[in-house]
């Protein structure tokens, strides 16, 4: 009974599925809004509650490892905050311990739905246009949006942007590997591995609700602090904060 309820209500499984397909479909990092640059000197960014899971795939079935998931979340969040600070971003962590309103949760879910739609489009509709616009956006660009609902992400916050960190890893056990080898030896067919590691960051403009930037990276083990830092570094490289670095170096008077 309990498993059935979880299965029905846990929307995060959809996120994993969509992004697995989207990321596996590409040989290069997915980036949306890759030419987007924040021009203010010290942009304020609210880092939302991360969505990080590490699933252990054994011959008995998948198991969401608690310790691995927590370690991965700690590593990725720590790396993200450090690196944002390093490029002059005033980053604040979302207070997960504070009571969250239903409206805020709905806004977070809306963000998941919008980014899932992006992934679905990239994976199924137009795999060649990771950096391009959706068909309707050729007429009206930048319509990946949460619209006014974005203000519910953190009511009262003065942050310019909300950043979402999503990471899902599926790690196979040795038993699964050797079982695959045995199946291959006996049948001549090696089952396709369902192991996967993918992380993405997305940025929502809190004033307009637009999803202005999104970039993903496949591979890397977020359980390892060094690899987690490398994942974040790779995703942020050439990203939206290059503009703020430039602004900081050049002129203090630039306004966002």
């Amino acid at each position: 009974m309990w498993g059935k309820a979880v299965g029905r209500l846990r929307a995060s499984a959809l996120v994993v599925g969509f992004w697995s397909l989207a990321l596996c479909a590409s040989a290069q990092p997915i980036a949306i809004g890759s030419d987007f640059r924040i021009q203010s000197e010290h942009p304020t960014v609210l880092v939302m509650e991360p969505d990080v899971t590490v699933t252990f795939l054994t011959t008995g079935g998948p198991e969401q490892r608690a310790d691995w998931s927590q370690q991965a979340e700690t590593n990725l969040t720590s790396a993200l905050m450090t690196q944002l600070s390093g490029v002059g971003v005033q980053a604040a962590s979302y207070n997960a311990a504070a009571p969250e309103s239903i409206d805020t949760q709905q806004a977070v879910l809306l963000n998941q739905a919008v980014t899932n739609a992006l992934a679905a489009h990239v994976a199924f509709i137009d795999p060649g246009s990771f950096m391009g616009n959706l068909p309707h956006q050729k007429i009206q660009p930048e319509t990946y949006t949460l619209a006014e609902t974005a203000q519910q992400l953190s009511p009262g916050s003065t942050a310019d942007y909300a950043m979402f960190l999503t990471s899902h890893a599926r790690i196979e056990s040795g038993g699964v590997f050797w079982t695959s080898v045995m199946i291959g030896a006996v049948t001549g067919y090696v089952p396709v591995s369902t192991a996967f590691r993918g992380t993405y960051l997305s940025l929502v403009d809190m004033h307009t609700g637009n999803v202005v930037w999104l970039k993903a990276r496949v591979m890397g083990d977020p359980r390892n602090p060094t690899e987690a830092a490398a994942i974040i570094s790779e995703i942020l490289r050439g990203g939206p904060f290059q503009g703020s670095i430039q602004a900081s170096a050049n002129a203090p008077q630039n306004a966002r």
Partner: protein
Amino acid sequence: MAPAAYAQARQTTDERVATSMRFEADDFERRLQRSRIRNTAPDLIIEIQRIGCAIAQERCSSFRFYVIETPEFNASMAPNGMMMINSGLLLRCESEAELAFVMAHEFHHFVDNDSVEMASRIRGANAGGLFIMIGLSVVGAGALGELGYLGAVANALAFSREQERDADMFASSFTNEHGYDSYAGVHLWERLRTEMLASSSEQTRKRFTSGSLFSTHPLTEERIAYLQAQPRLHPEGGGDAVRYRAFIRPHLRQWLEAEISVRDAGAGLALLERLAAPGADMGVIQYARGEIYRYRNNDGDATRALASYTEAVEHADAPPETWRQIGIMQHRVHNSAAADEAFSRYLSLATSAPDRLLIASMMSAAPPAAQPISNAAAP
């Protein structure tokens, strides 16, 4: 992510799986606490907590009770002490004894660590089945591999049925020991059987009459039989149906709306017939009955729907929308006078309904002056 710390590195496989399940349950519960799917009405929660604490006794503080707004007849217990009771189950209980029976059943699942044990069995079945398939392939009997795998899974699900039976027996004992009617479960399953056998869905009817190797629960017939074989010490205990109806009355309309959304006319009408038996809440019940006839739309259902709506408005608890439905039905048969009258009643009762302008446009006469339409646009 859940706030608790989890250390799994030195745990055995079963311990590790149990920790992972609690972790997932904690995470799920944290999201549930901020979800619109919960019914947080204090009257509901306090009463459920009272019954739950009577069952759990000194372990009461280890449990959290949630009412989930969904028409499905179900309740569940997570390995972290989170009990979820669906509104569809509350709607189908007729007494505190029946609700206590279900909660005791779920409590036993927790005490016996059933969900974790079941997960362990399923994992064993998955791994075992896989190796049976490989083994049979090695000896050239690969075609039988699938059968071996299904056999392993069926074996695990037989264990699930055993768990359910044990939980039923515990609930029967608990009700006897605490002054409740131990036949509460029998009554509940009998009514559910009646409702499901009336279902418009052949699949639903089959599910209640024929089990399989892959059923997670015993057949309803079997459950009734073994519960009836147990002692019954307090036939009247906790069986106050009037009190229970008063308990769910504030939510009755919302839960019936959810039932209507399931679009199972047969089961829905059977449920309403049972709810109508005491003769209370007839405005809400007849409105729901009219709605079911309206969407079923068989020959004669329009007449039945109108008759149900018409009977509903004779009772003070009829929803204002009943008048709107009467108006629409009269409007369709060009009975303008009757339609206008019904629409007027609707507009005078539903002063903030979002469809006021639309309804007013369907009237042949001007809407009531006391309720200017310009004020009606408010959401």
